[in-house]
């Protein structure tokens, strides 16, 4: 859909934010008090929201959050249902899902939400994801890259997937692209001007400048990389990477497209009621594929390291037609062993080409 494009004055964003906070629950990027310069997505308390600072943050391009915004729809730990251990009742989880607004999502993370929409909609669709996701409204915003970003290689730098409204800061204000009725509704009550050709051009220049600032790149496209992983024996790279990896799982935890989970029951202290919950899983942990009797199909670290690449760049690529990597760089930023996904991938690509 060709979006309608409007100009939203910078001064109007705080007004708009206040309006949004009054009408809906809002999740957006907040500054970490404990770690200046780092951000996290969370509910914004309408009572003491600093909308001026938030607007400023959105206008100036905050750096990527450590934990991706997928947690708005797939909480790190979520109750599937409550139960009474002794009695026959399994009440549905009564937590009511109000439609909410997720704001300030960068293009790579919009692409990730769309990938998760695809994966979780694959039959049978995941109910808990759908319950939160379908009534939500998403506002995207353009960003400035750092040295870990490689969205251009994954073709997500200009993504407008999964968003209802997208904002790009330009000289005359925000270039606001409207992608849905919900997105249009968000601008109601604020006077916006239709964007002029030079505004639109400035928006494009913003994207080009951003793309030019990205320093990392994968040396193969998604299709070629999938083919390499499928056909070439790259054991030596897995082994070398495994020698550095701690199997800490941070790469999974920070990834916006990882969607595996663990399910567990917990009993309340009264021992008669409890709940079943799911929490984010990690294929890098040894227990992930533990089988009966202590055997393990990925008991060796190199197998787990390899699986992360195979799953993202081959299996899910084959299943859904997209690599499940957006180039956000979070896994590389988070890795305590300084394992950079681009370096390893390029090493794989280089060795594969040598072997041919």
């Amino acid at each position, binding site marked *: 859909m060709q979006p309608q494009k409007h100009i939203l004055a910078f001064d109007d964003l705080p007004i708009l934010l206040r309006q949004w906070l009054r009408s809906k629950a809002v999740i957006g990027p907040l500054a970490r008090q404990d770690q200046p310069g780092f951000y996290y997505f969370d509910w914004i308390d309408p009572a003491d929201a600093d909308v001026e600072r938030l607007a400023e943050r959105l206008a100036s391009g905050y750096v990527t959050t450590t934990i991706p915004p997928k947690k708005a729809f797939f909480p790190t730990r979520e109750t*599937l*249902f409550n*139960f*009474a*251990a002794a009695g*026959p009742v*399994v009440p*549905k989880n009564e937590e009511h899902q109000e439609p909410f607004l997720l704001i300030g999502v960068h293009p790579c993370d919009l692409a990730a939400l769309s990938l998760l929409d695809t*994966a*979780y909609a*694959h*039959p*049978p*669709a*995941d*109910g*808990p994801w*759908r319950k939160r996701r379908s009534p939500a409204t998403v506002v995207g915003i353009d960003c400035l890259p750092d040295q870990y970003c490689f969205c251009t290689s994954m073709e997500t730098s200009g993504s407008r997937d999964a968003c209802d409204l997208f904002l790009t800061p330009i000289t005359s204000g925000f270039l606001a692209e409207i992608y849905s009725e919900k997105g249009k509704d968000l601008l109601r009550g604020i006077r916006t001007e239709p964007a002029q050709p030079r505004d639109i051009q400035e928006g494009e220049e913003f994207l080009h400048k951003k793309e030019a600032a990205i320093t990392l790149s994968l040396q193969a496209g998604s299709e070629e990389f999938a083919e390499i992983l499928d056909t070439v024996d790259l054991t030596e790279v897995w082994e070398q990477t495994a020698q550095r990896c701690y199997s800490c799982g941070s790469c999974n935890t920070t990834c916006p497209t990882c*969607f*595996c*989970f*663990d*399910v*567990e*029951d917990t*009993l309340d202290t009264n*021992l008669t009621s*409890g709940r*079943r919950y*799911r929490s984010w*899983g990690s*294929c890098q942990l*040894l227990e*992930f*594929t*533990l*089988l*009966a*009797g*202590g*055997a*393990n*199909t*990925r*008991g*060796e*670290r190199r*197998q787990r390291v390899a*699986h992360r690449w*195979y*799953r993202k760049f*081959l*299996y899910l690529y*084959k*299943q859904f037609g997209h690599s499940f990597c957006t180039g956000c760089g979070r896994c590389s930023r988070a890795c305590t062993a300084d394992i950079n996904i681009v370096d390893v991938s390029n090493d794989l690509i280089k060795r594969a080409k040598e072997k041919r």
Partner: protein
Amino acid sequence: MVVPGLEVPVDYIPQQVDVLNVIDEAPGVKILALTAPQGKMTFVAGQFVQISVFGYGEAPFTICSSPSQSDSFDICVSAVGRVSNALHRLKPGDRVGVRGPLGHGFPLEQVLGRDLFFVAGGTGMACLRSVIADCRENLSDYGRLIIANGVKTPAKRLFAADLQLWHDDVRTELHETVDTPDASWQGRVGVVPDIIKDVDFDPHNTVAFVVGPPVVFRFAAQNFLNKGVEEKDIYFSLERRFQCGVGKCGHCQVNDLYVCQNGPVFSYSELKSRSEAVEATLPDN
């Protein structure tokens, strides 16, 4: 392709059913009869259910009763961990949670008219009993029904009454073996895949269904292939530790396949190039 029912989102909430009966089948193994959710259980032999004991968790078990029985169904449970031990403590009248039937069972429609060779190793018969019952109820649809059952010791034989029935019935050919005999055992001693070597059968018209630990898979596949059975005609039912049972949580992934959703029954031709299918190692750290 949209499979009917799959467009309904899964909320992971089990239905509650009653435990009708509990039978001590062998040391550490019990058979639980459960009421069918909403009064009716329609399934293909080889499909599994996710069974919950609330507070302990959920685990997959193959339905071991015949598909023709629909108002209740049986599962055969080895006590190995949290859920299975909790199941062993249940009495008639207790309640458990059920999701399913899930996954793909044995492809009986594709093997009509063929000779069927069933190989169960260890507790594998828990998974094969349903499909054997189904075939016996529709004898005219198949050729020979050859059954090989191998357990560690005679005490570990499951479904002794069925084994006796299959032994006595001229239309089923039962071969049994144990690894370690005791004074009660008159029969064969040795590993179950060796039975494949010793039975005379037509490899081109035979379809194999194998359930057992990885070592049984390996040698059964080898022996069937040596006899000339085609790769696509050798089927295995794989076990992994499931969490979601519907292709979402990633725990059961064997390379690009989800055992819970694409299986648990797979042909050897699907598995042979997939390194994670039978390769399991003990932990390196």
